């Protein structure tokens, strides 16, 4: 079980370092997303430790680190660092403090922030290209759409968004 405890401790250490780097880079005005590389370095170190360290459960030790790291990196990149807010989160927080009509809830959002900011995000991610006021999906974007379509057909999803 020592390997499992070591991985847990090591993940906690990486997470604390990640939070520290994020706060530091925000304070210094540097790119915050680079702080996730702490998990890559941590993973390489853990693989070396598992290879040479004679752990009792080597694969489980790696999973103890990898699974939460993937979850944290995903949530960090797509929610904590995203400039666009999450509509469901906003709706829930407003409805939980008092009754609201659909119109009142709609007034919480501006289309500029809901649509324009996200289209800009897509351009920055290289999934969409812009020429004057026209938008086109790039090859990378087509790949994402194709995988979405596959999922949509497989799980019988009629409406996305």
């Amino acid at each position, binding site marked *: 079980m020592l390997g499992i405890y070591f991985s847990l401790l090591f993940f906690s250490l990486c997470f604390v370092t990640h939070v520290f780097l994020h706060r530091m880079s925000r304070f210094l005005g540097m790119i915050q997303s680079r702080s996730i590389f702490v998990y890559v370095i941590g993973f390489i170190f853990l693989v070396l430790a598992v290879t040479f360290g004679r752990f009792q459960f080597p694969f*489980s030790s790696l999973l103890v680190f990898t699974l939460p790291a993937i979850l944290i990196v995903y949530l960090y990149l797509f929610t*904590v660092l995203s400039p666009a807010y999450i509509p469901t989160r906003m709706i829930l927080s407003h409805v939980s403090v008092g009754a609201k009509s*659909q119109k009142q809830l709609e007034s919480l959002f501006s289309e500029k922030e809901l649509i324009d900011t996200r289209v800009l995000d897509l351009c920055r991610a290289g999934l969409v290209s812009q020429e004057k006021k026209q938008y086109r999906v790039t090859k990378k974007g087509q790949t994402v759409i194709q995988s979405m379509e596959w999922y949509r057909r497989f799980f019988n999803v009629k409406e996305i968004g």
Partner: protein
Amino acid sequence: MIDYWIIGISFYGFLVFLILVSLALRMTPQSQRSGWIVRMVFTTFFIQCIALWVFSTVSSTVAQSIVVIIVLSLIFTKFLMVLFIVCVYSPIEASVTLRLLREIGNGQSTLERIKKRYNREAIVRMRLVRLAASGDVEMRGGQMVSIKPVPSLFRIREMLLGVLFWVFGE
């Protein structure tokens, strides 16, 4: 040897979950899916426990380390399920950004044309339908009210994000 059992049972549990989810999602109306996902998480837990009990009667290795195998494999399976729900299911079903990408891919090439098909009203309406189906909110006298005392998929995600935003100071 025990390590292989842990990994094997974890991925077996996840595979069972994926099969159950794919069957449930194909047969359930889209608005009621979040409730079914939670049911499938619990169903998989029971199937996995039964499988472990069967394995422990057949294999002496499993029987000797049954507690370690149960605890670790259940934790790993739960994490794989959470990864599927957070990284695959939620974004594809409910992400505004991915919907916008699809709209642009379908030929809506300007912001004006996109907003005619997919706008603030549509985004709020779709979310209210989902939240009403999961039992988080209810329509009373033309107003939406919060009714859920127990955590649902949406509230668990909200709590998780709340903790993360607090930790990162955002």
